[in-house]
Structure formats: C-alpha cells, structure tokens
C-alpha cells in the first residue's frame, strides 16, 4: 500500500467517524440480553444472569492484519465487544476487526443472545454495507436468525441486531458474515464456533476428563484438550484493490495466503496474539488473537475442531507421526443408523469451504517432540512468494 493513499484514507476516516456519529439514530445500538440492564451484555452488580443463558456482543467492521511475510492486509471482520457500554461501542468496535473473529463456544441447549452491531468500514467510507452473522450448520434454522441476507434482514451501520439460538446439537460449526458473501468472506468475516455436549461433566466410558465431542453414550469421543483449526485463504490482490477503492476482482480471485486461524506459518505457532498491525506509522488494534500452537502431554487425547471457510480452494490437512481418528463430520457423530461406530483412522482430511471435521489425535505411546499439522497441497505451504510457511502449525507433545 502506498503511504500517500493511506494518508488520504485516514483523512476520509475522520470524515467517516463524524458522519457515522451524526447519522446514528438514538438507541439503534442495543444489546438484548435477559437480566442485563445497562446494555453491556454482561451481568454485573445487581443484574442476575438467567439460568442457561449466554450473551455475546460482536462488532462488525474493518481493520488490518499482518501476513506471515509482513504484508499488511486490509480486512473486514468481527470483534468481541461484550461488556462494552452502548455509548462506547462505536469507539471500541471501529477499526478493530479480528481475523478470525472471536471464537464462540456455547453449551448445548443454551439460550444464546448474540448481538451484532455494525460499526461501519472506516477505511471505506464510500461503503454502507450491512452485515450479518450466519451460524453455519445450525439445525432447523429459521431465516430470521440465519444471517443469509436475501431471505431475511441484515443490520445497517450504526445499528444492532440480536440473534437467538438454542444450540440443540453439539459439534464443530463456524460463523461468518453472509452479506455480499464472496466479498465479505474473502475480506475475513470468518470465525470458529463450537457447541459442547450435555454429556460433559459426567464420566462415561471411563473418560477421566469428562469432556466429549458428542453425546456419544460410550465415551468414544472423549478428549482432554481441544483446538479450533479453521482453514482459510486470502487473495492479497483482492484486499489491496479493496482498500484502494478499485473494482473487485471476483473472477480472478486466487488465494495466495493459505492460513490456519488467520495466520501463516510460523505465525501459527506464536502462542499469543500477534503484535498489532502498524498502519502508516500508527499502531492499530490487536487483530490476530487465535493461536494454532497445539500442545499436549503424551497420553492425552487432542481434539482438533477442523473447519474450512476458504472462499476458493479445497485443502487437505495431514499430521505426520500421529494417527488422525475422525469421530465427527459437519457436527455429527460418525455413527450408523443402528448405532455402529463409523469413526475411522486416517492420515488426512480434505475440506472445502463450509465443511468441518472432528479429529482426535491419541498421543498414547507417541514420543515427546514436535509434530506437524500441515497441508499436503504443498503449494499452499507458502506465504505468498515466501516458500516456507502457509498452512502449517506444530504439535508439541511434552
């Protein structure tokens, strides 16, 4: 990106903030969360959390991330503003897009109130796009809470929409914005989402951790530690043209940054958030918070919640040296209709966009050391022109 363009954009950004502040209708930012009275989506002081209730407040806007080769990338995305008072929402949410978005973990059967506030795209003040949350894979969804904007509604800049879910089935899902899906998803409005089963907390089949992927009834999906592994790709040309306010190359879209949880190797193994991106000398918001560093002690069962929200390519993931046992696919346990266990052991899983797998790595008998989780589509072991990186991370067995 050229500095001159950025400077002029930052000028526009100031205008946009002024415009957005003026165009806000009173009360358009509103968190609906039972028991919460001050509108921050948390239960504090005398506020009482109703049983089995979960509230989340996400902002949808724009921001920046840094690719593993140092390339600064303009993005759209979500950020977690749960706990932020309504008057502070715009200030907190603007230019704070994360990639991937905040991971959402819910319990089976919870009453989930997810509020989405559209804080606008500060770097693209010419755009007035609405946004949405699509809970991808939600069973028996109703259009009003499905986030697919053609058959329902999406939320305009400066306003909030509260989605409601009862999360009836455990498993690995994902969420993403569905407005202008090709553009908003390529731009980064993607995140991990999973639902834990009611069986958790009970000892079934001798499962000491009391953690399960599904309500399996026999402990066969018992695990000790779990990690979300979301695959995606960025086409840096698309992003660069986007912030340059140029026509978007949908037809030519070709991802050159294959990633796990929004990072290419070696950033994937950074255990913490990546440093905040620096935009033209100014430090932005910390935006890449999901590490893909997998660590466990020998003997533990490691659950990988693998999903793909790639908008272009299929990817094949492999683990060298530890068998991969696939126990679920698309948030459903692998079982025959007569109850036969159909889980299988493999060395790879292949995912297109919108697919998920639950994979357990049983490290019993595995020698301590470093193992790799990587794509066997070897051209995707790259960060654009940089040839050692991309869709790969490490598994540390201690």
């Amino acid at each position: 990106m050229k500095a001159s363009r950025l400077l002029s954009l930052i000028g526009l950004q100031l205008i946009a903030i002024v415009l957005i502040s003026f165009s806000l209708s009173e009360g358009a930012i509103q968190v609906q969360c039972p028991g919460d009275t001050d509108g921050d989506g948390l239960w504090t002081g005398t506020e009482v959390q109703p049983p089995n209730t979960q509230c989340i407040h996400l902002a949808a806007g724009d921001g920046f991330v840094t690719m593993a080769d140092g390339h600064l990338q303009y993005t759209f995305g979500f950020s977690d503003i749960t706990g932020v008072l309504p008057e502070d929402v715009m200030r907190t949410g603007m230019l704070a897009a994360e990639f991937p978005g905040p991971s959402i973990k819910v319990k089976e059967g919870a009453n989930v109130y997810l509020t989405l506030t559209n804080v606008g795209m500060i770097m693209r003040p010419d755009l007035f796009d609405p946004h949405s949350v699509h809970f991808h894979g939600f069973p028996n969804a109703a259009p009003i809470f499905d986030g697919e904007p053609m058959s329902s509604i999406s939320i305009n800049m400066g306003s909030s929409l509260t989605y409601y879910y009862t999360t009836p089935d455990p498993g690995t899902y994902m969420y993403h914005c569905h407005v202008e899906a090709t553009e908003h998803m390529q731009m980064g409005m993607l995140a991990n989402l999973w639902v834990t089963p009611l069986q958790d907390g009970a000892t079934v089949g001798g499962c000491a951790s009391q953690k399960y992927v599904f309500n399996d009834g026999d402990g066969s999906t018992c695990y000790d530690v779990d990690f979300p592994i979301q695959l995606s790709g960025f086409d840096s040309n698309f992003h660069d043209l986007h912030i340059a306010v140029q026509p978007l190359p949908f037809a030519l879209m070709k991802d050159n940054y294959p990633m796990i949880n929004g990072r290419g190797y070696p950033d994937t193994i950074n255990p913490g958030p990546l440093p905040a991106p620096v935009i033209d000398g100014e430090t932005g918001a910390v935006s890449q918070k999901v590490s893909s560093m997998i660590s466990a002690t020998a003997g533990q069962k490691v659950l990988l919640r693998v999903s793909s929200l790639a908008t272009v390519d299929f990817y094949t993931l492999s683990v060298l040296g530890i068998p991969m046992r696939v126990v679920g696919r698309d948030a459903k346990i692998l079982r025959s209709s007569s109850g036969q266990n159909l889980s299988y052991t493999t060395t790879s899983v292949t995912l297109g966009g919108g697919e998920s797998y639950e994979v357990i790595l049983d490290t019993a008998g595995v020698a301590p050391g470093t193992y790799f989780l990587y794509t066997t589509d070897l051209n995707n072991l790259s960060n654009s022109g940089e040839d050692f990186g991309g869709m790969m991370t490490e598994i540390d067995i201690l």
Partner: protein
Amino acid sequence: MKNTFIMKRAAWMLLIAAALVFGGPRAYAAIDGITGPTFNLTARAGYISTSEGGSYLMWGYADGAGLMQYPGPTLIVNQGDLVTVNLSNQLTVPVSIVFPGQSGVTAVGGTTGLLTSEAPAAGGTVTYSFTAAQPGTYTYYSGTRPELQIEMGLMGALIVRPTVNPATRAYGHSDSQFDHEYLFLLSEMDPDIHDQVAAGNMNPMDTTTYFPVYWFINGRTAPDTMGMAHDPLLPHQPYNIVPFMHPGEKVLLRMIGGGRDLHPFHTHGNHHKVIARDGRMLSSGVGADLAEMAFTTTVVPGSTADAIFTWTGEKLGWDMYGYTNATHPAYCSASGNPTAAYPADKLSQLPTDRCKPFPVTLPDQTDITNGQFYSGSPFLGSMGYIPPGEGGYNPNSGFLYMWHSHAEKEITNFDIFPGGMLTMLFIEAPGVTLMEP
C-alpha cells in the same frame, strides 16, 4: 458493494406464483427430463446465456431434432429397462457417450474410439445399449476428448427409477423415500476455451491454465437458476432449479459433478443426509444405514450423491407461526402451552416450541436492509411490512434458504455478485400450494 441482485426473469416466477396460489392444487412434478427406454440424441452446437449477459458457444446433446441443450436431456428410465441411445452427430468433430456405472454397454456402428465407439463428424451415428440394472443417479458424457467435450457441454444426467415405489423412492428402500426430488448437476466454465472453439481452434486446451469464471446448476447461472423451466429466453438451457417443500416433507437432492472441479455444496436450513453415492445406497445391507449427515457435501467430478433434506423447525425455542396466548388464545393457553385446537397441519415443530414467544425485538425498518426474498415477518406464512422496492420475491411468505457452493467465489458471474452456483429453497407454510416454475 451494494447488493443489486438483478432478477431479470424473476418477474416470470412471481406471476407464476400468483397464478398458482389461486389456481388450486397441482401434482408434484418429477425431475424434468425425457423418458426411455429408447432415446435419440443429436450432438450439435448452440449458444447459452449467462445471467449477466454473456453468450458462449457450447456443444451439447439435443433430444432428437430439438435444440442443443446444456446440460443434455436428463434421461429417465426404469430399473431393468433395456436402454437404447441412438446418437447422431451434427458437430464437425467425432463425439460419443459413456455411461459410468452401467455394465455391459454395447455400441453398434460408428468408428472405434479410445473409450467407446464414436459417431463420426458431420452426420455420423452410433447406437449404445445397456440394461439399467440398478436404480440411482448417474451421469453420462462424451468419451471423446472428454477434457474438451465435457467442458463444451456434452454431458447430462441419467436417472434409473427403482422397481419398487419408482415415483417416491430413489432406491426402492424406505430410507430413500422423498416427497419432492431435484437435480443438482454442477458444472463450471472457462470462457476462453469456448471463444477459441468458436474461432475455429479445435485444440484449445491447456489444462494448466484452465480458469473457470462461471458456475452452473443444471446449466444455468443464478439468478437464471430460479427462472422458469423451458423459458423461451433460454432456449438451450431448459432446466431450472428451485426446490420447494412444506415443513416435515423430504426433498431428494440428486447431485452430480458435471465438470472438472470439486464443489462444496451447502444447504442452508438444515443438514442433509447423504444416502447414496454413484448410484449405490450407503449400506451395510439394511437400507441406507451408513448414510452421512452433512451441512456441506463435496460434489465430485464424474460422481453422484443422493441426499435427503428435511426441515421441521424443531427446537427453535419459539413458535415459528408466531402463535402465542396473546395473539391466538384458542391455540395457546395462558400458561403458554398449545391447546388441542392448535392447527393439526402445523405440528412439525415440537410441542415445546409451540406458543413460545419470539425471543427478541427486531430492529426498526430504518436500521435494517430487507432481503428480496424476505417476507417482512420472522414467521412462516406471515407477511410483514417491507418498504416499497424491497422484498417482493416471496409471494407466499415462505421460509427461504440459499443452497449454494460454499466456495463463495463460485456464486458470481464473471465478476458480478451474486450469481453462479446458487438457488433458493422455498419452504412454504402448510396448505400453500407449491409452485414448480
């Protein structure tokens, strides 16, 4: 970018919808196609349209003296039929047909080709015969230079109906029972190849640079996918794809990979149950006991998959018809539970959902963007206020769900979003007559 989904032919659909609402019941339509056991196919050239206004030379199979069509006619036969396909060739190159999944295919006439006998260029003929021994969803395509000729459009679907319950089951067994069936023949196109063939270059294939920019369901790009079948404006693309159902009914998806790329096909609304692949039930011996639940199925080139989709609205946590004690005291008691008078045709949702109030307050009109398929109401069969110029394509206030390639790049038409490999499922309220545009 501003969403401008131009439904250039959706006005047709709307008219049909209005007509059907007042036109009384109509029998469920089966998959569009031609029935055997004898077929006369002609390979010829013609131009197809893409939704944003493109026009491309294709080669395709025509039904006898009819127009070239993309995809070729869906051939529908019965299990056990001795199927005969007479192919005549009006193209300037030899062509043929192979029938993957069929055993004992014999060819009479024509000239010897690499995979099968071919109909010579400019008037040649060949006849293929086989017994359709097993029910299921199959494909057929050219066995002559398939890397070029399938791309050019020489492919189609073959459906073999079972001996038992042929109209309502895909495989005879009750696990394959359906109320409505739809074809999802997925393909893609690199226009460079078509432009070169149109310019007379019959050797345009460089597979290393193959780069599709169009994606089709049943030979159409969205929004044409949702236009009416046999639209005179699309003479070479007769098949549409707009699935319809009521809550609790079962839709059979017959998915076929008709091109060279994989496509992750996602059903909004619910999982679908993949009951068969390549014309065989996923079975250890008893029905489709090895069926796989999926919210996205990878459709593989040259391969088929059959899936059953259903949707009941269960466990939403609120009454999907909007019935509460306040609005419908006859249906809902003061304690918020359904009474015996709760409508009998609306029982697909669970008793625990019935009469439960809608859980949130929706934003004001000024704060939202209404989708063109939104009824203005969160409730099935209810219409709400939508500002003029918004909404409008959901005349019966159904619940609509996008079914699409989840490689989102593929829901575009050559730089125009949305388009491509996309359609909408209509779940209509109980009692609403389903339209088959």
